[in-house]
C-alpha cells in the first residue's frame, strides 16, 4: 500500500543534508503553484464566472430548459448502463488476471488498456463502420428496424468502449498485491466460488472498486469525442450534456453553454473530492512507517 500512501505522509524530520536552500524551495513552490493556478484553477474559475455572469435568473433558466433536462437524462441513462457493465467486466478481468496463470496474459492486459490510447474520434468512427447504414451490420440492423448510430445505443456503446479499462485498471494492481491466500483459505474451509467472491474478495477490494467506479462514471458522463461522432446531434433525442454544451456554444449562447458546463464542472469537483476521500481511506494506518 506504500505507493498509495504517499499523499499526506509527513516525512519524518527531513535531515539537514536533504534540505534545499530556502530560496530554492521558495522559488520552486512559487513556480509550481503558479503553473497549477494558471493552468488548472483558472479554467475552472472561468466556467463558474461565465455561467453566473448574466445573473442567477439566467443561470436557472438555462438549467431549467427542456433541452438541458433531456441532455441530462441521456447522460444519466448512458452512465447508468455503462458503469455497472464495466464494473462486472472489471471484476472478471481482475479475477482472471490476478488469480490464474494462462498464456497471453500480458497481451490481455495490454488489450484492456487499448481504449486509453485510441482516439475517441476513432472509437466513434469504428462504431459507424460497424453499425452505420453502410457498416458491417448496417443492412441487418435496417432490415430489423434497429437504430444504433445516431441513436441512444450508439451513444451507450461509445461510452462503454472509452471506459472499459477504468475499473479493471484499479483492481488489477490491488488484487495482485493482496495475493490469493485468503481466498484459498476460504475455499479450503468449504466456501464455494460465489461465497469467496462475496465474503472475501469484494470486501477486500471495496475501496479500489469504488475508486474505479467514480473514475468510470466521471468519464462516462463527460465523454465527448466518441459520442459526438455517433450522436447525430438531434436535440431532445441524442444529445448528452457535453454535446449540449458544444451546441449552445456554437450557437453563440455562451452564457447558457457555460451554465450547463458548470454542472459538469461540479461533477468533476465532486469526483476529485471523492477521490481525495478515498485516498485517505486507502491508507488505514499511516503511523506504521517502520523500517525493517
Amino acid at each position, binding site marked *: 500500500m506504500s505507493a498509495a500512501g504517499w499523499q499526506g505522509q509527513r516525512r519524518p524530520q527531513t535531515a539537514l543534508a536533504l534540505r534545499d536552500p530556502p530560496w530554492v524551495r521558495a522559488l520552486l513552490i512559487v513556480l509550481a503553484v503558479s503553473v*497549477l493556478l494558471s493552468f488548472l*484553477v483558472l479554467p475552472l474559475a472561468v466556467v463558474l464566472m461565465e455561467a453566473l455572469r448574466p445573473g442567477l435568473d439566467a443561470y436557472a433558466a438555462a438549467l431549467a430548459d427542456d433541452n438541458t433536462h433531456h441532455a441530462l437524462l441521456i447522460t444519466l441513462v448512458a452512465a447508468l448502463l455503462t458503469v455497472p457493465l464495466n464494473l462486472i467486466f472489471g471484476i472478471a478481468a481482475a479475477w482472471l488476471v490476478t488469480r490464474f496463470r494462462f498464456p497471453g496474459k500480458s497481451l490481455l492486459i495490454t*488489450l484492456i488498456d487499448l481504449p486509453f490510447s485510441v482516439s475517441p474520434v476513432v472509437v466513434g468512427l469504428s462504431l459507424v463502420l460497424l453499425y452505420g447504414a453502410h457498416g458491417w451490420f448496417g443492412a441487418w440492423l435496417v432490415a430489423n428496424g434497429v437504430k444504433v448510430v445516431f441513436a441512444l445505443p450508439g451513444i451507450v456503446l461509445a461510452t462503454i468502449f472509452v471506459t472499459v479499462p477504468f475499473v479493471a485498471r484499479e483492481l488489477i494492481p490491488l488484487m495482485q498485491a493482496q495475493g490469493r491466500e485468503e481466498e484459498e483459505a476460504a475455499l479450503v474451509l468449504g466456501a464455494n466460488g460465489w461465497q469467496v467472491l462475496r465474503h472475501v474478495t469484494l470486501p477486500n477490494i471495496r475501496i479500489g472498486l469504488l475508486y474505479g467506479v467514480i473514475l468510470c462514471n466521471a468519464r462516462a458522463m463527460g465523454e465527448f469525442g466518441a459520442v459526438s461522432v455517433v450522436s447525430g446531434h438531434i436535440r431532445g433525442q441524442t444529445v448528452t450534456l457535453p454535446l449540449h454544451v458544444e451546441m449552445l456554444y456554437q450557437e453563440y449562447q455562451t452564457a447558457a453553454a457555460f451554465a450547463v458546463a458548470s454542472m459538469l464542472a461540479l461533477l468533476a469537483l465532486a469526483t476529485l473530492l471523492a477521490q481525495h476521500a478515498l485516498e485517505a481511506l486507502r491508507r488505514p494506518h499511516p503511523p506504521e512507517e517502520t523500517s525493517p
Partner: protein
Amino acid sequence: MSAAATPLQVGLREARVRRPLVDGVLPGGRLAAGITIGWLGAIVLLPVAAVILASQPLDAAGFLAVSLEPRVLASYRLTFGMSLAAAAIDLVAGVLIAWVLVRYHFPGRRLLDTLVDLPFALPTAVAGIALGNLYAPNGWLGAPLAALGIEVAFKPLGVLVALTFIGLPFVVRTVQPVLVEIAAELEEVAATLGATRWQTFRHVVLPAILPAALTGFTLAFARAVGEYGSVIFVTGNIPYVSEITPLVIISRLEEYDYRGAAVVGATMLIFSFAILFVINALQAWGQRRSGLPG
C-alpha cells in the same frame, strides 16, 4: 535419448499435458475468461477490426496515398508536433510539481494535490470552452498575451495549450510515487560524499525518476495525439493550418468518405498500438530499475 524417462520426467510431462489453459486453484477461471474475452471482443476488438478492415480493400500504395495526402499530412504534422511539444512541457512542469508536492510543505498543498487530477475529471468539452474563453483576445490570459503580440485562441498555438492542459496529470501522477519511494539514505549518502543538492538531484534522484517521467511523457503524448474535445474550441480548425487529425476523420465522415475516414483512423490505430508497446517497455524498465518484481 534412448534411456527410459525417469518418473520425474514422466510426471513433469503429464503435468504439462494436463495443465488446463486457464490454470489456478480458485474457481471461476472459465467464467471470468469468458466475460473478459467476450466483452473485450465485442466492445473493443470488433470495432477496431472494422476500422482496419474498412481501410483494407486498398493496397499498400493506395493506403499511403490516402493516408499521406497533403491535408492529412498537414494535420499529422500539427497533431504530432504539438503533442510532442505539449508532452515535453508537461514533462518539465510535471516533475517540478511532483517534486514540490512530495518534498515541501506549504499551506494549500493537499488542495493543489487533489486538483492535479482536474484534467482527468473535467469533461473535455468543458475544458475546451473554458480554455477558449481564457485565451480569447479579450480573455483573462488572452488579453495580456495579445498585448505581447502572442495570439493563442483560434490559432495553432491554441492546440498546444489544450494538449498541455489535458496531459499534465500523467507526468505528475507517475513521478510522484517514485519520488516518495526513493530511499532518503541514498540522498544522505550523496550528501555525505560531498555532493551538492544539485549534484544529488542530477545523479541520484533524476536517474531514479527517469523511467516514470518518460512513462508519463509517453502517456501524455498518446493522449494528446487522440485528443479532440478540448482542442476544437481553442483553435480555428482551418484545414492545413489548425486542423488536427481527429477532425480530419470527422470531416471525411461528414463527406460520406468512409474509406478515407477509415484509412486515417487505421493510421491512428497503428500509432496507438505502437505507443502501447513503448509504454509497456518503459514500465518494465522502471520495474527493473527499482528492483521490484514485475
